[in-house]
């Protein structure tokens, strides 16, 4: 409540006051200089190198995935270049026991959380083995229904809370996803239950062709969290250190029982929306593309690490070679995976310890015979 004599803000001024507060949080600028010393997480040299290694590796994975797709050897693929800091530096702040609910573009995070690369390729190839997450890997298959993961994350977080776990549920969507009802319901539910969730919106400026300005009148997506009572932050999504710190702090609050956080990371996807016929020249200019490329997370982190004597071309090439090698091996595994059969699909419809419904059983026998020919 405002003090009796304090000048009360009208509704317009209140909005302005809130929006002005949402400045972009940055630690490492485009030139690779620390501009916010107080916030520097002071990662160890090994940690800095490991984060760089993951970003370089993932950039190569993206390039290889795109070319495999063009050769008709991959299938569904949503490019990730430009989002490495948002994806991998946020993931870098997590623990192995934290549970990730990714969107379709968030495959890198779940790979670094433990999903074997071959399975990521099988997911792309439309094989359910890609979604058979190993038991010790705490992730849900990438969500296709935009926004659904937000309210589900509230559920996972509530479950962790009930079990007294010191872990968090982390979920990702895009600028477009933040328009879905599930987005608002998710942050509101988690807020209402004070659950240990972290909601990350990677604002890469477009939802397919639809520019961010058409999604909402709100100046930032981060400020949407305020309405649900969540600590909320707008972060330079091309700055690995800022993304790391925002996520680390959100995690700390969450495990300390202080509830969920909303993080908006400002970033860009250099590639098309997916490899299925999207043509970005219909909705973006090459000027905008190159403006964002100047902010590239790999470039600035490389500069930063090189200045510290932690990174050089040799190291970079090592990572590139390793990535290429592992991708090749993973593709071999994916190639060797038996083609998916319709009877396989029938077997995963219901609890295998119960009797198949009569209709399915009949169809199962039929397909068994078809497949044996």
């Amino acid at each position, binding site marked *: 409540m405002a003090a009796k004599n304090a000048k009360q803000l009208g509704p317009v001024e209140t909005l302005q006051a809130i929006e002005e507060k949402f400045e972009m949080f940055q630690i490492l600028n485009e030139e690779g200089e620390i501009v916010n010393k107080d916030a520097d997480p002071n990662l160890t040299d090994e940690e800095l190198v490991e984060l760089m290694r993951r970003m370089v590796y993932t950039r190569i994975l993206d390039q290889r995935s795109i070319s495999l797709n063009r050769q008709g050897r991959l299938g569904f693929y949503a490019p990730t270049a430009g989002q490495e800091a948002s994806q991998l530096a946020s993931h870098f702040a997590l623990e192995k026991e934290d549970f990730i609910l990714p969107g379709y573009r968030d495959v890198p995070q779940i790979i670094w959380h433990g999903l074997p690369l071959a399975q990521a390729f099988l997911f792309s190839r439309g094989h359910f083995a890609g979604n058979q997450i190993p038991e010790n890997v705490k992730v849900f298959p990438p969500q296709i*229904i935009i926004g659904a993961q937000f309210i589900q994350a509230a559920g996972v977080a509530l479950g962790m809370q009930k079990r007294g776990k010191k872990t968090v549920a982390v979920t990702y969507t895009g600028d*477009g996803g933040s*328009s879905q009802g599930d987005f608002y319901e998710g942050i509101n539910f988690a807020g209402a239950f004070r659950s240990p969730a972290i909601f990350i919106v990677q604002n890469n400026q477009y939802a*397919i*062709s639809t520019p961010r300005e058409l999604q909402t009148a709100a100046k930032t997506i981060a400020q949407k969290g305020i309405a649900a009572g969540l600590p909320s932050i707008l972060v330079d999504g091309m700055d690995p250190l800022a993304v790391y710190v925002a996520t680390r702090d959100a995690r700390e609050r969450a495990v300390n029982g202080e509830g969920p956080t909303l993080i908006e990371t400002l970033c860009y996807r250099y590639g098309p929306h997916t490899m*299925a016929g999207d043509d970005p020249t219909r909705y973006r200019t090459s000027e905008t593309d190159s403006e964002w490329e100047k902010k590239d997370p790999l470039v600035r982190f490389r500069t930063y690490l090189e200045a510290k004597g932690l990174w050089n071309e040799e190291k970079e090439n090592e990572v590139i070679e390793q990535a290429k090698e592992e991708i090749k091996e993973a593709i071999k595994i994916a190639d060797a995976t038996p083609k998916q059969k319709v009877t396989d699909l029938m077997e995963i419809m219901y609890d295998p310890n119960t009797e198949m419904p009569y209709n399915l059983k009949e*169809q199962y026998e039929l397909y068994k015979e078809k497949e044996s020919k």
Partner: protein
Amino acid sequence: MAQLTMIQAITDALRTELKNDENVLVFGEDVGNNGGVFRATEGLQKEFGEDRVFDTPLAESGIGGLAVGLSLEGFRPVPEIQFFGFVYEVMDSISGQLARMRFRSGGVYNAPVTIRSPFGGGVHTPEMHADSLEGLVASQPGLKVVIPSSPYDAKGLLISAIRDNDPVIFLEHMKLYRSFREEVPEEEYTIPLGKAAVKREGTDLTIIAYGAMVQESMKAAEELEKENYSVEVIDLRTVQPLDIPTIIASVEKTGRAVVVQEAQKQAGVAANVVAEINERAILSLEAPVLRVFAPDTVFPFSQAETVWLPNSKDIVATAKKVLTF
């Protein structure tokens, strides 16, 4: 006359109605500048302006609710749901609201809304995009459900749907979008909703199908003709309400019927067609009416899609069972 694909015929119908009626509004995700992810609305925003053809924020429930509200304001909304697999997000607007507007208001309000949406398998989309969910909406009183199988029909049916004063769900099979061209008149024409088309006449068996299964049924009929069976093929075109007179007249003539749907056995509308035939023409039947359908699993991951989807071979096999009963 121009040779158009189905997607071009759909754009043509939208353009025709945007021109004819200033209350027609086209909106949805990426339908404006981008012309839709399948390009169904290509060029329309340029031609008619952002006032008439516009992008919405990303929320299907929002798109449905907007259609309800715009109807109340006297508009004739033609929203797009980018893929019908996402229809669950907007089911309350469709079944809970649009389908009941006339009813709930005792006839005072109505919803002249046409929801267009791509559906159906065979084009290797990611998960959850390609389901055949027509049965879901066909089961809801208050809705009409239209599924064209050719460019010519698509134009005439879409114009009728837009002019209809009640909500219509207009489902466009993705595989048909660019699979073939046919002559489509430049001028406007309508094909009445609720009227099936006899695609091929025959005397031994009636095959009833819709959507992409019409072509498979035509292929099957040709196969069967080689074995001297004369097969009639009916394209339902509207799956709710059904064209009972056309179906029953044909079955009374042939005495045998097969109903084909791409949806799973427990989904789709074939069960309803079989029930109608049994109720109305049982004494004309020489054999049980059988169905061709997809297995009762969730729509498959793309790798198994081709095997999972019913095709002309399945239709021939089932037809033979009925023919030799």
